[in-house]
């Protein structure tokens, strides 16, 4: 009896402790400062003024897992990062909770591709799933509140705290096993009998593609200008049979070069030719083994895109290669920037480069098997063996000592900054050798954000690929749809109505502003100022409101279409834009002065992270980072596209190439973008927003409901995708971070044969050791902030 009473007392005591502890924990959920991709931007937005997660006591972002209570897995869980995510989770102190944020983390989302884990719940227990791609900040709050409710309603922590049996705390759900406790079908369970749409025409097999039944005119053919013709002649004279200018092209002078003379040709073009082609814009390869007219193609083609600053022109060099795993010579001695490009080609295609200083995998984990961009390689994660907890334990990234040698003496410290770090701006791993605070060696390990988007481009129809574009640079939204649609339009010779062009420009510039505001916020944060963040995000919300009004989306509007834009501007767009244009300059002035004139900020950035113009050109640095070296080079002016030539704006440049110069250029760019937006809104032409040539595009809905021709085109172009004529085109645009190019190759099917993305970040980040070695560890953070890169566009 006595013991029973005693037990009853104990129970009551424990129950009340449960209530108290649950109450405390629910209001003190400190999230780890941890993000994977796009979703993290919305997670971070949830902390800012409009949403203010702080109200729930959850604004205390902790960089150390030891002090965090909540892991919000925000974004795509890549196979290369999964071991890191698992470790961070395990390093958190009990009790700990997990929220899976966004479709990618929930189930792989739109990335059913070799490099992505199809749901974080295969390696960690998850309490709350937030759906969306990406979920809005409100959804993050909802997820947090749901977790709070779960803690209050379900957990019995007192027993765990007092080491008694029977308590529960933290996330306890079982792991899911792909194929056993969750469906392996990306469409969900119950669809087993139906093949995945489009899978019948995924290379390498094309059983009776119905696209062949459609006739389309051949690819666009451009007239080469005199300069290009002269150059072709010079090359022919000098190298004879080794070079062969292509008879026709859809975009630029294209020259086929035999492998033996490649280096000579490139050296000539870089140093002697008139004009000189000083920049290696892009280097990639195409696996030709699945071409339908197989005998007309070699086994692989290497493709070099060169750019001449002098003549503002581009040039394509194609090199045929033969054999199962061909070898060619490295051009790293000509262009240092070729280093990473060649490693990428090796990684994804298995082509070797003789004379390369460091030829090893770059994007995929070091223990990966196969070369994913070969046509014989299965593209989907759901076609591979399921990813499990054991894989996440086993496949660890290389030790830091592999990257920087430990020979610098006893004081050298090798420190891994990233992939999980507050200021690496994404999943990038800096391996730094330190002598005191000074950086004596720096090497980067990338690929933690490799989403296999180029492989996806080969299976999504031409229209279906558009949503993937915005996700290549998740802060530049619609701005990076532009080079893709322009490239396809160039290839198929699609004419875009003027109104659509101006809408595209306006949205691109709105996103440039939005991106630069995030850059401003994070840069200020990187050098230690916490408040500008909140001001910049306030204005960014205004921009996203306009974007939402026009497109219905926030980060990833997927709004551009081949031949135009998805719909006309809605009522009230002009007022919204005008209001923003009126408010923004004074707001920017207000908080920008706080930074620009701040002596600490100046001391932290002036003279830090210098790069010379010559070096910047050699390394393929583009965008504001290049202009901060004093070169007046902006594609919008030099090689105008989408009607930029009709706008009045200046290209801001600065001297010095240091962190402060990069700051000045970007801030001034914001003002110029605003000018463009103002002009676009004031002079918006009337007319169609979609071309009336419906062969390749999604016809306007009103037309589709009215005449049978439009209906047929709509049906065919939505279901199989349009047939884009055989050929290739490369188009690059000045997106906020620099020059982003799309190289699309068509084999005359409903999907691209090869989809190559040249991201500005890849080149801009490769140059990092030049900027940071010899500076201190704090400077590295300032430099990272000033370079403004984003991971999905580096790793793609």
């Amino acid at each position: 009896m006595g013991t029973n009473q005693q037990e009853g007392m104990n129970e009551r005591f424990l129950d009340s402790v449960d209530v108290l502890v649950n109450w405390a924990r629910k209001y003190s959920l400190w999230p780890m400062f941890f993000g994977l991709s796009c979703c993290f931007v919305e997670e971070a937005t949830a902390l800012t003024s409009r949403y203010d997660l702080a109200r729930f006591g959850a604004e205390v972002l902790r960089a150390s897992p030891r002090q965090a209570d909540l892991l919000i897995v925000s974004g795509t869980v890549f196979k290369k990062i999964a071991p890191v995510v698992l470790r961070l989770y395990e390093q958190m102190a009990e009790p700990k909770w997990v929220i899976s944020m966004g479709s990618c983390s929930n189930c792989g989302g739109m990335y059913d591709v070799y490099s992505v884990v199809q749901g974080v719940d295969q390696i960690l227990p998850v309490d709350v799933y937030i759906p969306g791609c990406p979920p809005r900040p409100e959804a993050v709050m909802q997820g947090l509140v749901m977790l709070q409710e779960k803690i209050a309603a379900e957990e019995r922590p007192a027993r765990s705290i007092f080491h008694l049996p029977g308590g529960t705390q933290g996330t306890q759900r079982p792991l899911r096993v792909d194929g056993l406790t969750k469906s392996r079908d990306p469409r969900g369970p119950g669809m087993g009998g139906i093949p995945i749409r489009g899978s019948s025409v995924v290379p390498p097999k094309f059983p009776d593609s119905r696209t062949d039944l459609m006739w389309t005119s051949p690819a666009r053919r451009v007239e080469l200008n005199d300069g290009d013709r002269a150059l072709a002649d010079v090359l022919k004279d000098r190298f004879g049979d080794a070079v062969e200018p292509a008879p026709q092209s859809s975009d630029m002078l294209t020259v086929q070069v035999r492998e033996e003379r490649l280096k000579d040709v490139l050296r000539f073009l870089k140093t002697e030719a008139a004009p000189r082609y000083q920049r290696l814009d892009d280097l990639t390869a195409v696996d030709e083994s699945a071409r339908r007219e197989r005998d007309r193609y070699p086994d692989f083609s290497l493709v070099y895109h060169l750019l001449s600053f002098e003549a503002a022109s581009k040039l394509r060099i194609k090199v045929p290669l033969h054999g199962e795993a061909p070898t060619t010579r490295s051009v790293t001695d000509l262009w240092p920037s070729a280093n990473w490009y060649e490693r990428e080609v090796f990684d994804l295609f298995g082509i070797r480069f003789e004379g390369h200083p460091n030829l090893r995998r770059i994007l995929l984990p070091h223990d990966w098997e196969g070369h994913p961009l070969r046509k014989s390689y299965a593209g989907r994660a759901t076609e591979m063996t399921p990813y499990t907890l054991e894989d996440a334990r086993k496949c660890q990234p290389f030790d830091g000592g592999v990257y920087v040698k430990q020979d610098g003496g006893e004081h050298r410290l090798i420190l891994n900054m990233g992939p999980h770090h507050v200021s690496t701006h994404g999943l990038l791993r800096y391996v730094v050798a330190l002598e005191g605070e000074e950086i004596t060696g720096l090497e980067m390990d990338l690929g933690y954000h490799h989403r296999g988007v180029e492989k996806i481009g080969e299976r999504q129809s031409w229209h279906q690929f558009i949503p993937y574009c915005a996700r290549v640079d998740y802060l530049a939204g619609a701005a990076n749809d532009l080079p893709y649609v322009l490239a396809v339009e160039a290839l198929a010779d699609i004419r875009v109505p003027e109104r659509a062009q101006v809408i595209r420009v306006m949205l691109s510039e709105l996103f440039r502003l939005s991106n630069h505001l995030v850059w401003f916020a994070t840069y200020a944060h990187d050098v230690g100022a916490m408040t500008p963040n909140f001001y910049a995000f306030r204005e960014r919300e205004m921009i996203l409101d306009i974007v939402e009004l026009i497109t219905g989306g926030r980060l990833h509007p997927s709004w551009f279409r081949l031949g135009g834009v998805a719909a006309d501007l809605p009522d009230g767009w002009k007022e919204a834009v005008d209001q923003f244009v009126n408010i923004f300059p004074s707001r920017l002035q207000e908080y920008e002065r706080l930074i620009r004139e701040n002596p600490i900020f100046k001391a932290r950035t002036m003279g830090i992270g210098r790069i010379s113009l010559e070096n910047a050109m050699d390394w393929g640095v583009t965008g504001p980072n290049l202009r901060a070296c004093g070169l007046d080079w902006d594609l919008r002016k030099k090689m105008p596209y989408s009607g930029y030539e009709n706008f009045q704006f200046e290209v801001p440049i600065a001297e010095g190439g240091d962190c402060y110069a990069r700051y000045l250029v970007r801030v001034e760019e914001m003002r110029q973008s605003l000018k463009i937006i103002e002009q676009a809104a004031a002079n918006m032409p009337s007319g169609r927003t979609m071309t009336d040539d419906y062969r390749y595009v999604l016809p306007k809905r009103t037309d589709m409901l009215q005449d049978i021709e439009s209906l047929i085109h709509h049906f065919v172009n939505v279901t199989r995708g349009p047939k884009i004529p055989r050929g290739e085109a490369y188009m690059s645009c000045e997106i906020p971070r620099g020059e982003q190019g799309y190289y699309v190759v068509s084999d005359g099917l409903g999907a691209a044969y090869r989809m190559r993305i040249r991201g500005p970040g890849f080149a801009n980040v490769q140059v990092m050791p030049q900027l940071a070695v010899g500076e201190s560890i704090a400077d590295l953070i300032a430099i990272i902030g000033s370079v403004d890169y984003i991971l999905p566009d580096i790793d793609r």
Partner: protein
Amino acid sequence: MLTWSLGFLILMVKLGAVLLFLLLAAAYLVWLERKFLARLQVRYGPNRAGKYGLLQPIADMIKMLTKEDTIPEGADRVIFLLAPAVVTVTALLMFAVIPFGGDLSFLGKRIPMVIADLNIGLLFVFALSSLGVYGIALGGWASNSKYSLLGGIRGAAQMISYELSLGLSLVPVVMLAGSFSLVDIVRAQEAYPFILVQPLAFVIFVISAMAESKRIPFDLPEAENELGAGYHTEYSGIRFGLFFLGEYVNMQVLGALVAVLFLGGWSGPFLSGPAWFCIKILVVALVMIWIRGTLPRLRYDQLMALGWKVLIPLALVNIVVTGAVILI
């Protein structure tokens, strides 16, 4: 004996009250900082746990108390476990010599509003604040983690460097008051607060004090953007909480020192001594939070240069000039 017991009782109540006040004030200083920063940043800040989020500190405290205590492999266990205590203990003990009001009288007996009026009060404060360095440096070193190590090294170098300018900036104050006792220093300011005659010493002291308390723009030892969480990276639960507590008690102590040394301590019209004292501390704390919400962070070498090349020479010159002025 009876008076002794009574006195002992009163003393215990006083000490208990002071300790409790310090702890509560530290907790609510965190709340104040979160709310004030939020308002600077056009936000609301915590407002769900209790009205205006007033129970937020309690929630955080209970959460930390019931969280797992992690110790990394290879850590120097004893040092690792004790380092957070060093920070808190030194911060709390520093308050012992700070007078927070004029004497009260009770049954004809004098009850001083200071725990210990040592004649070397100021030196006691310096001694303890030097000891506080150990908590940071050893905590960072013992963790066997590189971020912690870097934070610990930064913390040690920064704190001992600013210790010098902190001390030297106060020499003129000692000269004016002719004593190290903080009670005497407050008394010496009956005519005018020292901030009026020693503005330079005031500025040097406040800058050094902020560096000592490791707050933006001097928060290098835990610079989140650079070192994750710096010296306390490996600490979880209430051990991390103790570092936190130490920091906020430190903030109060520094506020109190500013009040005592430059703002006339507890003296002021209309209100009672302790009330004035609290108001002055609060003002100093708010200014420190405001600065945190405004400025970027210095780099390590800039921080050291500011201390050694600017503050220390200025403080030395200030001593010589003050001496001359007093003698004239």
